[in-house]
């Protein structure tokens, strides 16, 4: 899966080094974890770590696509909350869980569609639009559900959240995530749709002139974000065994952190799914280790924020280095390829 056009902006060597570095960090995290607590390597702990990360991981998949095209979606937390709210209302009215899930997915699709329509047809920067919909969707959720919370999900549903396969520590939700991961990875790296996203992220005008329907592509990634948010809502409510209007507040932070940590350029045009996967694992287990070491959820939030920033600093520095390299290469190339 690792071919030339994944390394679109940064030279091959740098990206490969980054993913290797991330793997190294992951291994170190495991080592630290084992030191910190004897419970770390227990099956139950591993599955909790994985299950806890899954909602963010599911949303990180379309977020990768969105950031590759040079856009951003800050409203994902609110979309998850909105879907959870509608599902809760369904349950309150005694409808079967399957109907609730269906409604949730519909709501997610519509929310993503609205984001896409305003960005594409309103011609507005996705930053501002999704800040607006972040407020709008959360607000709607609050209007509908007020302070109520709904539980009473059936057993099999809750199993999605933290039930595991057989005797392994792998939760069902992780399997769901992994299947989607494969799909998204193939989509981004091997299909023509994926290559179009990279092109859009690098030069939107030229891509449009090349016969690619840029509007449809961007609309598509925002819809994907909405759909996956609804799936994340299902997994999250299953995990928490409850649905409230404030579900998933702040989800955008770990999602964007994971994508950026995975090596996706925040300005668009480059990055790999594999990197994002490793980054998700790193984040999941770092948080887990911190928790075992007694750090509060807020403390973990601080760490997540710090990770985001440090990653960007590091990439900022390497961008400068690479730009210098490219200038050097170009002057060499011009010297040698005079026509």
């Amino acid at each position, binding site marked *: 899966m690792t071919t030339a*056009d994944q390394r679109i*902006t940064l030279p091959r060597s740098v990206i490969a080094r980054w993913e290797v570095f991330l793997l190294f960090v992951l291994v170190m995290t495991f080592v630290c974890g084992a030191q910190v607590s004897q419970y770390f390597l227990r099956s139950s702990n591993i599955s909790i770590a994985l299950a806890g990360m899954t909602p963010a991981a599911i949303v990180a998949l379309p977020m990768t696509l969105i950031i590759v095209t040079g856009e951003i979606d*800050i409203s994902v937390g609110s979309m998850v909350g909105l879907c959870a709210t509608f599902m809760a209302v369904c349950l309150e009215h005694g409808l079967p869980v399957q109907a609730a899930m269906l409604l949730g997915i519909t709501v997610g699709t519509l929310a993503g569609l609205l984001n896409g329509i305003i960005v594409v047809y*309103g011609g*507005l*920067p996705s*930053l*501002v*639009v999704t*800040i*607006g*919909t972040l*407020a*709008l*969707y*959360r*607000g709607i959720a609050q*209007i509908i559900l007020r302070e109520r919370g709904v539980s009473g999900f059936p057993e099999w549903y809750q199993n999605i959240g933290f039930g595991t396969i057989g005797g392994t520590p792998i939760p069902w939700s992780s399997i769901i995530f992994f299947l989607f991961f494969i799909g998204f990875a*193939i989509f981004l790296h*091997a*299909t*023509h749709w994926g*290559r179009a996203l990279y*092109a859009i992220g*690098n*030069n939107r*005008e*030229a891509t449009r*002139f*090349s*016969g*690619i329907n840029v509007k449809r592509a961007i609309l598509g990634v925002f819809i994907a974000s909405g759909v996956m948010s609804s799936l994340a809502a299902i997994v999250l409510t299953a995990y928490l065994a409850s649905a409230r209007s404030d579900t998933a507040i702040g989800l*955008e*932070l770990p999602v*964007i*952190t994971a994508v950026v940590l995975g090596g996706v350029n*925040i*300005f668009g045009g480059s990055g790999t799914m594999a990197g994002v996967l490793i980054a998700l694992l790193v984040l999941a287990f770092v948080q887990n280790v911190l928790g075992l070491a007694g750090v509060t959820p*807020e*403390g973990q*939030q*601080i760490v*997540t*924020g*710090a990770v*985001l*920033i440090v990653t*960007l*600093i590091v990439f*900022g*520095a390497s961008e400068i280095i690479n730009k210098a390299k490219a200038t050097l290469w*170009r*002057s*060499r*190339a*011009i*010297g040698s*390829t*005079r*026509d």
Partner: protein
Amino acid sequence: MQPVVAAEVRPAPTGAKGRDLGVEPKRYQSEVEFSHPVVELRGITKRFGPVEVLSAVDLSLRAGRVHSLAGENGAGKSTLVKILGGIHQPDGGRILKNGLETTILGAADARRQGIAVIHQHPAIFPDLSVAENIFVGRQPRHAGRIDWPAMTKRAADLLFSLQVDIDVRVPVKMLSIAERQAIEIAKALSIDARVLVMDEPTSAISSREIDRLFEIVGRLKKQGVAILFISHFIDEILGLGDEVTILRSGKRIITAPTADLTPEQTIRHMIGTEPGAFFPKEDTQIGLPVLGVRKLSGAGFVEDISFEVRAGEILGFFGLVGAGRSEVGQMLFGVTRPDRGEIRIDGHVVQPRSPRHAMRLGISLLPEDRHQQGLVLQFPIRANQTLPILRQLANRLGLIDRVREAEIAKKFAGLTRVVATGIEQLTNTVSGGNQQKVLLAKWLIPSPRVLILDEPTRGIDVRAKAEIHRIISHLAAQGIAIILISDDAQEVIGMADRIIVFRGGRIAAESVRSSFDREAILLAAAHTARSHEASGTANAAGTQSADRAPSPGNSRGLIRRLMRVRELGLVLALLIICAAVTMREPRFLQGANLKQVALSATLVCIVALGEALVIIARQIDLSVGAMVAMSAFISAEWLEHRPHEWILFVLLLGCSVGGALGIVNALLVAVFRIPAIVATLGTLAIYRGGVIVLAGGRQISATVLPDSYGEIARVNFAGVPLLVWLAVLLTVGFGLAMRFTWTGRNLYALGSNQESAHFAGISEQRHLALVFILSGLLCGFVGVLWGARFGTVDAVIAPDLHLQAISAVVVGGVSIFGGSGSVYGAALGTMIFAVLQNGVQLLGINQFWLQAVVGAAILSTVLFYSYLARRAERVERESRRSQPVPWRLE
């Protein structure tokens, strides 16, 4: 086969690009005697890594003379320009100014030393007015504050002295490239430049505009300015310049008076070999009509275009910039929809709905701007070539067949003779001429039957040009119908079988190869033949003062009104909302209620002031709520343990906390160059997490805080709460600072165009740091007031403050793209929301609606303003179409 000789070789009468209008050739050259050099470059050497881009180059620029600089792409011209402009430092050699050795360190230093550089794409600030653009960074001041009337008058005078007719109050984004160049020249005059460097100024402007430009140059020469003129066009190099220096591969080949050089000699020096036949037109069998167009109209000004292209035929589209040729090409390619007319392929009517559809119909378009519209520079050559046919390369599942892709890419790169290390080489590391070949290969792959080439040889060197012409001829010989759009008369005459001349969106003339008449073609393309003669006498007539009222066309006055309407419109909106609420609930107007409204607005307003500054600078700060919480908690804690502390000290403490947090934001954005959106997303998490950890779940209530603290929120002056006074004072204070200080105007410049700000010597780092620190300080200040106003302080206060602040700022008319808007608007925005919130309360609507309303407000206002801006731009653009040049005409 008739070898037709290239424009560069045929001795050309003077006039840019051979576009003279059949009038007496004008010579722009000096009659000034020998004068000593103003700037001298001696033995200048520059290396980039192992490559020596300039080797011991000498150049002397004399007062009152035009020195032309000629050379192919990569010869070192632009590096030399950058050295003069202070952007690069030479590795060897000396720079002498008026005989004294000097160094030029940066763009601002170059300006200080009287060297002005006009780039091909003028570096301007789109949102700022013409006057501000001219004086950016050094606006005239009076008594410590910026003197706007003086600036307007001085700008108008400068433009008048150049005989340029532009209203100095118009924002520059409305102006054409030629007008922007005029402004750059005015800017050069305003700094009393002694040296003017013009880097390929004529590539993107029309023939008449070029003549005007050269007249300005003539005037500058009389004022003793030394001019360095860089161009690709031999006619201009020899016609405008008094002397010419020719560079090749970084070395100076020759410097000579232009009168002593023929065009052939010039080219020979540039390329080092004898120029061969440049237009090898092959004998072609011209077949049946492939493309037929009837009465095509669209793009606002293109009317009634009808023509036919046959297989194997090259149809030339000739005309001035803006005559409509590219627009026709884009209509054929489905980029824009025509309003009327018929397009036929092989006799069948078709309606290209999109570029993809056009490709399927067999039409390919090589766009005019290869960097913006043609190539994805970060892709390898292979990926660029296959971009249009990606879908065809994929199977039913969408997976790309990479083997086939590589085969096709290699084949076509070979066809167009792309010189590179391979198809995997990144496109941005390949030279201009080769990039154009990649582009050509890209559009040949879909096997077009109609190939539209829009300026295929613009901006590339002589040898690459010849190769591309050879390829085009070859393509025609294979039966492709070709439309060649070019504003180079020699190219079109050399290559085409038929020529259609465009003027003002219509077809002005048609011509067949056997009867090509260069003068007739040029005449047809120009607006009127008389304008050239009239130019000499035009300036005598009309003593209109340059700062008169807006020119004809009500649209311009309307635009300005539309712009100002933002703040007035906000006041109007505010009044309407107040009226609406009052009608449903008269209690709204009660004194006590109004006071509550004002109070609830103040804290958000002060935070919004900081946010407005940040957004004007084209950044964003999501961490404001967390900063307020941190400051609030720390100050409340302090007061809890030291109840006798002076309030002033606590305020200082809060501000310091906020300031420190703001400094972190500033570091991340300004120094580490992290995009503000993610940087402040991260610090939002860190600060909020931090205060939660610090608080450890505690809540500090008013009972443990001293009375004096809560007093701040309750004290009135003249019946108005102190807090409101504070907010008003701060708003007015920042408003005045933004309007009347250099720093304030620099923020607008920075937000409008970062790159131009850099060239204007505005320190991006310092100003970005400033706005984030200010935002932090204001949040720190508000944090202290928060406890006073609300009584209870814990770690989760102000959870959505960032949303409230941003929505207030956005509703208040500050553009999210930066560069425009005001703090007064932001303040009005907070008031609108405060009234809305109060109204919601009074009318008994559920509080939970508020968050949704905030979200809807952000979305609708941004949509509304963007719609307004687009309409304004369209109206302005249309009003200038009827008068395409800024210079005064008879």
